[in-house]
Each structure stands twice: as C-alpha cells, then as structure tokens.
C-alpha cells in the first residue's frame, strides 16, 4: 500500500518502534522502507547505533541499546525519514525534522497530522525548537500518548 499512497500503515510503523518500555528513553524511529542508495544516517550517528554496511542500498537497522536519542541522524537524513520518540508522564514526545516556514515557537499549540496528512483530534505542544546550520530545524513536540504511532508531523499553529 505504501507504494501507492506514500503513507506507511500502522503495522509497518509499529515494526519500526521498540517496545513501549524501552521508550522511557528517547529512541530513533527510522521509517526508511525501501532500499535506496543512501547512508548518512549510519555515518552521522556518533554512537554506531545504525548499521547499513558497505552496500549502501541496504535498509538501515538500528540497535536500540546503543541509541541515545540524540537526534543527529534525524537532522542528517535527506529523506526526513527519522524522528526520535519517547514516552514520559503519559505523553509521547517527538523530535522531528522540519523544513517549512514559519517555524513554530516554544509554547505554541499546533495541529498534528498522521502519515496520510489527516489532522489528529488532539493538538500538540511545541516543547523545543533547535535551529541548525544546515537549515533542517529539529522541533520537539508533546502529544497525548495514544497518538504515539499516529503522530507524523506538525500542521499549523492553532
């Protein structure tokens, strides 16, 4: 289906998440489902948590034991296919790469969207905005935990 719609199904998404108890610490969720000649995620990770190998067409594999959730790979990935997820106090926290204007501001409420671009029932809260030199901004948001597997990006300011 993803080959037709561009959106990963919930099953596919879940296959990229670790068990929920692992998410008490932030972990990278790598949604790169097709073999493409690409490896910046592997080469950018300072903790050697991502493996692709010498055939750069392989799909990246992550070792959640090594991943610290630093988010460096999320900023490096040219496909904007990586986010960092964490669960804390009944809320899901995400670090997402963002390349649109206007940039959100900490404290604002924004609508959230799923992988089909549908707006979610609940908004999210902008927790942090980290501008970077390479112009992919890393935005941290929180949303209620039930949206853990649904949240994909922020929509517009509410």
């Amino acid at each position, binding site marked *: 289906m*993803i*080959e*037709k*719609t*561009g*959106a*990963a199904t919930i099953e596919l998404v879940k296959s990229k998440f670790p068990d929920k108890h692992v998410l008490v610490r932030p972990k990278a969720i790598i*949604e*790169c*489902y*097709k*073999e*493409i*000649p*690409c*490896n*910046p995620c592997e*080469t*950018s990770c300072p903790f050697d948590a991502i493996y692709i190998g*010498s*055939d*750069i*067409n*392989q799909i990246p594999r992550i070792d959640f034991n090594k991943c610290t959730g630093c988010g460096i790979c999320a900023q*490096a*990935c*040219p*496909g*904007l*296919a990586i986010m960092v997820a964490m669960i804390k106090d009944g809320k899901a926290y995400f670090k997402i790469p963002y*390349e*649109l*204007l206007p940039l959100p501001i900490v404290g604002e409420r924004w609508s959230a*969207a*799923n*992988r*089909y*671009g549908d707006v979610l029932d609940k908004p999210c809260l902008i927790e942090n905005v980290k501008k970077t030199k*390479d*112009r*992919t901004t890393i935005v941290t948001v929180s949303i209620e935990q039930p949206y853990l597997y649904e949240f*994909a*990006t922020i*929509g517009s300011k509410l």
Partner: protein
Amino acid sequence: MIEKELVIIGGGPAGLSAAKVASEAGMKVALFERSFSLGGQLIKQTHKFFGSESQYARVRGIEIADILINETRKHDVEIFLNATVVGLYKDNIITVYQDEKYFKVKAKAIIIATGASEKFLAFENNDLPGIYGAGAVQTLMNIHGVLPGKEVVMVGSGNIGLIVSYQLIQAGVKVKALVEAAGHIGGYLVHASKLRRLGVDIITNTTVKRAVGNGKLERIVTVKLDDKWQEIEGSEEVIECDALCISVGLSPLHQLLSMGNANMLYVNELGGLVPIKTCDYETSIPHVYACGDVTGIEEASSAMVEGKIAGLMAAKHLGFIHPNYDSLEAELNQQLCVLRQGPCGEKIRCGLKKVGEIYD
C-alpha cells in the same frame, strides 16, 4: 581557429568533475557552458542529496554545486559561460555560439556532458499558460524567486516530481494532488511520505486527460487508467488549479553526438538515444567521450563519478597519467557499482547492459 587540449561541453556535475580530474592529470581544460552559471541541474536543488559521503550525501544540491565549482576554480580551468556548443564536426572541431558570435575550436579530446532535457506529455490544451515542465518551475521558483501559481497539480511521481512538489510546498504553494499513470509511486518512498504527511493526495493509475481554461489554466480533467494504461470510461474527475507541473521524465541531450555521427542506440531504460561507449567512456568517435545524464538518465551522484572517470581516461589516452591513476580508477568504478547495486539501480543496470556495460 582556436586550439585547446581538452574541451568539456556542459558545466553540470559530470562536466565539472571531469574538468577537475583531467586538470589534476596535467591537461589544459576549456569548459563551455551555455547557461550564465556553472552547476547544471544542481543549482536548482535545495534538498539534501542521497548517496554516500564520497558523493556529498546529505549536502544540499546547490551547495554541492559550490563545492564542485570551487574545486574547478582551483585548477585553472578556462571557463566560457553563455557559450553554447552548436556543432560537433570531423577532427574534433566544435562551433561555439557566444555573445552573438560563432567561433570554432579544435581540441585534442572532447568530453560531452550536456545532461538532459525534459519530456512533455500530450493532452488536450497542453499549451495553456499555467502548464509548465518541472524544470521550468524550479528555474522560476529557485533561481528567479517567482511562484508558478497558487494551487498546483503535479503529474509524475518520479523523484523529480516528488522533490519539486516538496519545494513548491516550501515556497508556500498548495500542491493539490500528484497524479501518476503507473500503479505505484516511481521515486523514493521517503520523498513520497514527506508529501503525504503534509496532506498531498497521491493518486496512482491516473493521468491528465485535458486542461480547461479561458486564456489560462483554470482546472484539469483527470482520468483513471487500467493495468494496460487504457483510459477507464466514466472515471473523469475535475481538479481546480491554476498551475500544472509536468514531470514525466528526462531524455539525454544527444544532439551533438548525433551530429558528430557517433554510434547511438535508443535505450528506453536510459531515457532515449544514448552513445555506445567503451568502458573508458569513449564514444565511437576517437577522443570524444561522454558522461553523466547524456549517456543515460541517472543521478548527480553517478554523474560526478562518471565525469571523473571520463576525465581520467581522456587524459590517459593522450599520455597524461593522473598521479593517483591506479587507485582512482579502481575506487571510482567501485563507487559506481555500489550506487547501482540495489533495486533502484536495476533499470540503469539493465539499460547499460544494452550499450555494453555490465554490472552484475
């Protein structure tokens, strides 16, 4: 007549890379570019590139152009801008058109790196103002800062269609839909997912039947296609839009090579008419080489590597041996193998096989 050692035609990633390596090997290089700036397709690419570090993965296209241009500058390459090569004749003579004048140049060797041109799509009213090729939209938007419209429909889901759609969204344009004739998305899924989560409807098995508007585009009529690409009657739908962007592929700019009577072959997988070449990238015309998209539509990553090999070989055959010849040759061929290894490389591998290059 002006005489040059090595002439390179085209200042995109392939031509610039060839210029660098051939100069390193000791050749005096003259590069002719028809545009007002170097960089080819790269100067319109604001997104981060794929590939591995040796091809500047995760660097934005426009920044890769800067890196390549600076490297060429370091090497004392003679650069002619706004200089279109309009003819390739016997004995490696070319005609250049610059500043409303024509002049002839004779070269010991020539590398052709002219890239590609866009294919267009036939449908009713496809000449209405508001209907553009994806390349034109990129030029308007990313070079001249002009938006093509307020609400756009994109045709074609290859990487170019996907990337230009994303750039349109970044520029504040609403991309209402992306239609694709095939049954699945053609480009990388990561690019498609990026659009989908921003609300772009991706509609497969569908094409544009007709454009409608009074003096300018106002809406399009789409139609569903069955598995044999036949229109399904009664499946027409109307989408309101003031711009339509066509991205249905590129074909190699083969004209110079055809004019020079190089042996050519039509290879669908490579995008059209391409030169038959040796593994040293030499065409059937002695000392005339070709590299990059003009030898088959691929990526900037492979165009850069091919350009380096062409530069290396053009120099070698005239007795200029690059100081790192052996290691470079092996490393560059290895890079191409890796880039073309996976399922995305299947089409190109299949096409290259038809012109005699084997990647298995």
